[in-house]
């Protein structure tokens, strides 16, 4: 059970986050914060012609929140904004649904669906995604 939650890929992303840092010339940015557990994500994004050409995150928190942020940056980099939103919806629905998710469609994000069985941890897995939503909804910098 615990092995399903803490798969190696999650531990790996948690320990060596991808796309870590701050983009100096971001067009969009947002802060995500969970006051109950203190998880933090700061996201900077460069959007050009409707495409997320680059994004980086900084943060601190549990392995789930940081791994999820790391995987998100890989999942949406190079995608257009609408595609990125669709990926979040697919991921979000997979976490909220009682049914087995479509693992193939989720690709690497499927490794995070173990949190389904730990309701108190779902907000850890979605923090970075909500932060991305906030960033994309914000005005161009």
């Amino acid at each position, binding site marked *: 059970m615990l092995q399903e*939650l*803490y798969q190696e890929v999650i*531990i790996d992303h948690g320990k060596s986050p991808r796309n870590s840092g701050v983009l100096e010339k971001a067009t969009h940015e947002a802060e995500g914060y969970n006051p109950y*557990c*203190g998880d933090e994500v700061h996201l900077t994004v460069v959007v050009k012609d409707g495409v997320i050409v680059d994004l980086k995150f900084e943060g601190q*928190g*549990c*392995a*789930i929140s940081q791994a999820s942020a790391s995987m998100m940056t890989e999942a949406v980099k190079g995608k257009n904004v609408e595609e990125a939103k669709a990926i979040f919806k697919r991921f979000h629905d997979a976490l909220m649904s009682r049914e087995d998710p479509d693992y193939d469609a989720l690709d690497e994000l499927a490794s995070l669906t173990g949190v389904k069985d730990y309701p108190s941890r779902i907000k850890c897995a979605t923090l970075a995604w909500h932060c991305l939503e906030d960033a994309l909804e914000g005005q161009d910098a």
Partner: protein
Amino acid sequence: MIADQFPALNQKVNNRELVYLDSAATTQRPKRVIEAINRFYQQEGANVHRGAHELSRRATDLFEDSRKVLAESINAESREFVFTKGCSEAINLAAYSWGLANLNSGDRVLVSTMEHHSNLVPWQLVAEHAGASVEPIPVTDDVLLDLDALEAQLKKGAKLVAVKHVCNVSGTVNPIKEICLLAHEHDAVVVVDGAQSLAHCAVDVKDLDADFYALAGHKAYGPMGIGGLYVRWSILKDMKPWQGGGGMIRKVSFDGTTFAEPPERFEAGTPNVGGAVGFAEAVRFIQDLGIETIAQEERVLNKFAESELSALGIETIGGDPNKAGILSYNVDAIHPHDFGTICDQFGVAIRAGHHCCMPLMKRLGLAASARASLGVYNSKHDIIVMIEAIKEARKIFG
């Protein structure tokens, strides 16, 4: 076994026997407390002070008898003991009644760095209103209050010192008597957050010489939603109401309203009678076991836990040699929330986070920690299961 008296402890969590190590968040309740509350609702269930009937008279007696038991347990008079919905509300009462009337522009309020947000934020809110400032009293790396620094701060002039009796992160038992002596020499009043104390050490407000002492029922084997505030009579008698409503008045008219004497002056609305009855029964439960016996056994278990953790290279926060049974620690670089989830899979209930003490965590350079806190029902076996969870966490996070 004392644990057998606690119905909620007798269950499985994730197919393991529940190991409850979160008593600093809330203690579980013994059957006799739950039964006392039930009895009130089954046999009286009436409002107090106002009804011209038998059930109301009995409810009033139960409520006032509970006040007497609770007041006497901390060596206070009944008229000095105000019922509140908890410890936070008790401190808010002190802040909004005494604080608003007595704090003026330029006054200084000294709050220890280890305070729970509930003994800091009310003072910030009221100080902002009054134009007063709130300053931290430093703590050492061992989470002991820096008394020399406090004395220097008092010499510069301060109206109030806010400090907790027992620290919910480090288990530190603060020298309240010494702090009150110091503060009084410099004409400051002392507000003590006693949320963690009743279940861990003897409380004698007259011996401590505290001016305000706030209590929580649910951290001392009583129900949630009930607490109390002790205020020295010479202060309480002149305090103005902070909430208006039924039960706290003498005469009401549109030309002006006069108020009841304390403690009723501060108890607007229908009180939590069932809660008061349960709280008093919880204090009787503690008295029957003997607080010295409880404290002694807790120290032994705490030492055992610390040595087990130390054997794994894990240090706990706080260096008070007489600390209460509270163990805050981090397992390597594993985030406490991840560790908490792993513990839960072993049926072990711990707390993870900042414990509502963000300034203290910042002082210690930590974002969060895991915390295991002990109650009368805990045994060495519980610690051993927690150690098992630590080993599993290390395996997963390798």
